[in-house]
């Protein structure tokens, strides 16, 4: 089936690859701005940057040095019409700072040690590694950070935020999604979810401060045997459950409750409106992390599937541009031209992204099905 898909897509789409290597020179920061597709950044030991990009033949990649060469900017441009879906694979020296900005864009960074600033509207973001300031914002996508150390600021409007094996300071905020911090060693935490739950499993450093908030979702704090911290929790209408003092204890909402383990140390606070607050010894029932992460950008995939997915987005983009243009042409005059442009832009990026997302899901189902059936 995959071969068929690729054949059909390849016949319809003109995909082009840009592959270029440039010297880093004085550049300290790499900035990528794109409408749709994906940005994948990895590192190597060379003082050069390699930019591989897959895009339609209408699109070309512009690379510009700025600020006396201290910054390199990468941006797709179109010879005519909107620049649409581009899949970037970029390799940089480890120390370089990154600014990655997209709309319908999945972003993945692996191994970079510089400051990272990633922003997307509809796409997932995955950051593996990272030192210094790591700032991620996504309106609709999930955020996953692993192995980072620094000031980590994550915001998602609708999706989950997941941080694993990281340290430093962690700030996270999600309106609709859950926030999960797992195997972390931060010295400061401030996370809040409105609609989702909050789960913390990590250390409490001496003098550190930790705040967890939720409205209706539960807040679960997993506490290790050797932890030294004082817990101060409050809920308006929810309940509090703790097994820190051995036996499980439950309390109604409305008042503040304090617990101390190991003679104090760190200050831990949790507050909810209606959600349950649970303070659990590590290993006790319910202390397991609630969800497994799902990598937003697929790796180690069947190459054919990956290729089909990439092609699908380009096809969607081309189709979108074409349909938009034709629709516009059918309408007359100025209104037609304007509508055509807008439609082409909107459809090309939107359709490309949607096709990609749907195909990704299909292929995932595909690879899961046999296992399920066998059971």
């Amino acid at each position, binding site marked *: 089936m995959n071969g068929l898909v690729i054949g059909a897509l390849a016949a319809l789409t003109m995909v082009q690859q840009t592959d270029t290597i440039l010297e880093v020179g004085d550049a300290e920061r790499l900035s990528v701005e794109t409408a749709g597709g994906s940005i994948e950044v990895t590192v190597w030991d060379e003082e050069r940057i390699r930019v591989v990009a897959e895009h339609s033949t209408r699109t070309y990649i512009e690379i510009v040095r700025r600020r006396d060469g201290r910054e390199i900017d990468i941006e797709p441009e179109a010879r005519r019409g909107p620049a649409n879906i581009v899949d970037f694979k970029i390799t940089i020296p480890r120390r370089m700072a990154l600014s990655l900005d997209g709309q319908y864009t999945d972003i993945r960074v692996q191994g970079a040690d510089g400051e990272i600033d990633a922003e997307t509207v509809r796409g997932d973001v995955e950051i593996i590694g990272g030192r210094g300031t790591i700032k991620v914002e996504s309106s609709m996508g999930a955020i996953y950070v692993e192995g980072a150390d620094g000031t980590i600021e994550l915001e998602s409007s609708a999706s989950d935020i997941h941080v694993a094996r990281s340290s430093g300071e962690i700030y996270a905020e999600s309106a609709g999604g859950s926030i999960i911090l797992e195997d972390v060693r931060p010295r400061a935490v401030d996370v809040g979810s409105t*609609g989702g739950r909050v789960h913390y499993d990590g250390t409490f450093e001496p003098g550190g401060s930790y705040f967890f908030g939720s409205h*209706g979702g539960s807040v679960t704090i997993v506490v290790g045997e050797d932890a030294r911290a004082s817990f101060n929790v409050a809920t308006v209408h929810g309940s509090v459950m703790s097994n820190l003092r051995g036996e499980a204890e439950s309390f109604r909402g409305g008042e503040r409750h304090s617990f101390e383990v190991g003679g104090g140390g760190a200050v831990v606070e949790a507050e909810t409106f209606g959600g349950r607050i649970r303070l659990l010894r590590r290993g006790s029932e319910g202390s397991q992390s609630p969800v497994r992460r799902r990598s937003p950008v697929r790796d180690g995939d069947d190459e054919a599937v990956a290729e089909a997915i990439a092609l699908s987005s380009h096809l969607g983009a081309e189709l979108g541009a074409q349909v938009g243009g034709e629709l516009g042409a059918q309408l007359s005059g100025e209104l037609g031209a304007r509508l055509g442009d807008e439609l082409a832009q909107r459809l090309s990026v939107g359709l490309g992204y949607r096709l990609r997302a749907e195909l990704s899901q299909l292929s995932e189902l595909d690879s899961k099905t046999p296992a399920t059936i066998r059971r």
Partner: protein
Amino acid sequence: MSDHISRERMHEAMDGALSSSERARIESHLATCDVCRNELARLSEVVADLRALPRSATPPDDLWSGIRARVRAAGQEAAGEGATVLELPARAATDVAARERSAVRGVRLTVVQLAAAAAAVALITAGTMKLAMDAGAPASLEVAIEDAAAPGGAAARAVSFEEGRYVDMIDELEQILVEGRTVLAPETLVTIEASLSTVDAAIDEIETALTQDPASDLLLRLLTTHRNTKLGVLQRAAGAIQTEI
């Protein structure tokens, strides 16, 4: 008057791009319609003002030495195959500093920009117009939310903002969303609205609880947290709208 002159026609009239019959039609309409006459007058005034602006400006510094240096250094520049690579000069250091915001997360949008975002569909509501006018001279709404993760724990966490300004800011951002919503992809809009209704429901519940127990610092803090979240959601939505227009 039932059939006002469309905005597009007005602009065309100012550009002298109307056929004589259209012009005649418009002129006869203008003779009897105050609304269109005023609108056209205001627009023409703007265009006339723009056309009257000076067209030369003295650069703040002497840029020549930088140009000469680059011109001399040019020639042996070769970077990146298959890509356009331009070498551009340094940007003022203050710019970098300005972007480095640490403890204070500021949301700053000018009315011009708000109006700009709001007018994505070339439709400006009376509300926006009123806002722009009421706001007076250098109109701006500014909310600085101090994200005090710094020492001091709970006390320092208390988020400070001016109630009035917060409400204004939220109103304006919501207005942007209302008027710019059509530029967003439908799924994006659905998600944003779902996030907002989650936050709004939470805020409502807390506000109701506050009427029973107005002094509860727990409620106040929760309220602040979710308002902050709402601001973030709206801010990202406005950002998404802005990139589309």
